[in-house]
């Protein structure tokens, strides 16, 4: 495969950005709070190295299978990162919040159905069935990721469970990238791979640019410390206790009368 100077620039920039982000996660000890996200970034560094040597030393077929195998692993890790962010937001006391549990079942079903519906509508222009599967699969994944991150933000606000600062920043980054990816994959589906590699490459570069913006955002926000926790004034604490007991009492009465 012939790589242009721009391709190599993207490759090198992506590799460097991931190395910096990995260093931030290690130096600031964020890996303790985000082990899966750290694994996801580490895997990206490793993938770049593996693909570089496969491209240099291997055959075209070897590169193809390595590229897509690692792509599947990347998608699985992204889904794991989603789970990690959900767990950090919706388990305030160590267990899943009682009121959010029933929502998750519907959330997963709805997001999968919507993503599958959109992927079904896509009719990629491609010569080989494997290319159709790859384009539809990638599109499905990006739609699903966008839905999950937007749903996480909406559910956390609706239920009154705020995301911690760094959780919010990671989620915003992945959500933004996934939304851009939906557009890129939709365009991939329309242009396909049969009308020339040039458009495919250009679209991939758009996606990589969005991802680099996202990695840059993570580097800055994960380097910075979260706003310091405040000491709760006695006045607010006592009001909170009284309010809580009043609401509890109300609720008991409502439950009894149900």
């Amino acid at each position, binding site marked *: 495969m012939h790589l242009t100077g721009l391709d190599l620039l993207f490759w090198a920039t992506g590799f460097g950005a991931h190395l910096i982000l990995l260093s931030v996660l290690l130096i600031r000890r964020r890996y303790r709070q985000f082990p899966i996200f750290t694994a996801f970034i580490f895997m990206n560094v490793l993938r770049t190295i593996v693909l570089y040597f496969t491209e240099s030393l291997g055959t075209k077929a070897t590169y193809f299978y390595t590229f897509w195998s690692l792509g599947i692993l990347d998608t699985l890790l992204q889904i794991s990162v989603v789970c990690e962010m959900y767990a950090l937001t919706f388990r*305030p006391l160590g267990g899943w919040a009682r009121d959010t549990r029933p929502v998750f079942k519907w959330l997963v079903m709805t997001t999968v159905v919507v993503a599958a519906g959109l992927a079904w509508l896509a009719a990629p222009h491609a010569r080989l069935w494997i290319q159709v599967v790859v384009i539809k699969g990638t599109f499905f994944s990006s739609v699903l990721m966008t839905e999950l991150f937007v749903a996480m*933000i*909406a559910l956390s606000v609706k239920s009154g469970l705020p995301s911690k600062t760094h959780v919010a920043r990671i989620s915003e980054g992945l959500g933004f990238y996934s939304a851009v990816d939906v557009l890129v994959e939709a365009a991939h589906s329309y242009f396909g791979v049969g009308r020339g590699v040039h458009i495919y490459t250009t679209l991939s570069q758009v996606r990589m640019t969005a991802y680099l913006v996202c990695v840059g955002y993570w580097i800055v926000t994960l380097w910075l410390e979260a706003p310091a926790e405040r000491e709760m004034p006695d006045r607010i604490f006592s009001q909170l206790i009284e*309010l*809580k007991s*009043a*609401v509890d009492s109300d609720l008991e009465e409502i439950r009894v009368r149900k």
Partner: protein
Amino acid sequence: MVDSRTIVFFLAVAAFLVAMATIAVRSYRRAAKSSTKDWEHLLKRLQVVDRSSIAEVALDIIDESGQQRRDEGSAGLNPEQIWKLVGGLKGLEVLKANCEVLIDLAFYVQQWYPEALVVAEQLRLSAREIEFHVERLKGAERTGKLKSAFAMYAQPAVGKYYLMTRRLLALYEERNLPMLAALQKAL
């Protein structure tokens, strides 16, 4: 030439992205409303309710101390009267909006005062459950069964809401807080 399936596909993708952007923006706006304001600002968001009507509905089944009334004159209001006094669905909307304020208060506390996480979480769960009961009434309204469901769920909810607001005001009075006048007006 673009075929009809491709047109439908791109329209669906556009609708999807617009929906996602709308949900995200609305959520961020609400989060900003909860997290950038201070405690007093959040309390101010409690909506004004017709106190005398709420009291009449509440005191039909409970006394001032919050105990269940057992006398002969208790539970004398019929569903139509309760419906009118509570202000129908509009009144329920106010109750729901005030529950949202409680949830926002819990959101605020969890964000800034993690030391009070346990209490805030319990308050949040309780407010969410009251909100759920109000949603049931709204659901009954949609299926045309509101009148029968109203007396069953609304009067106890209103009664307890009344007690909760009385206690909150008493708390402010006890501590001689400057917000009292505004809070009395809101509640």
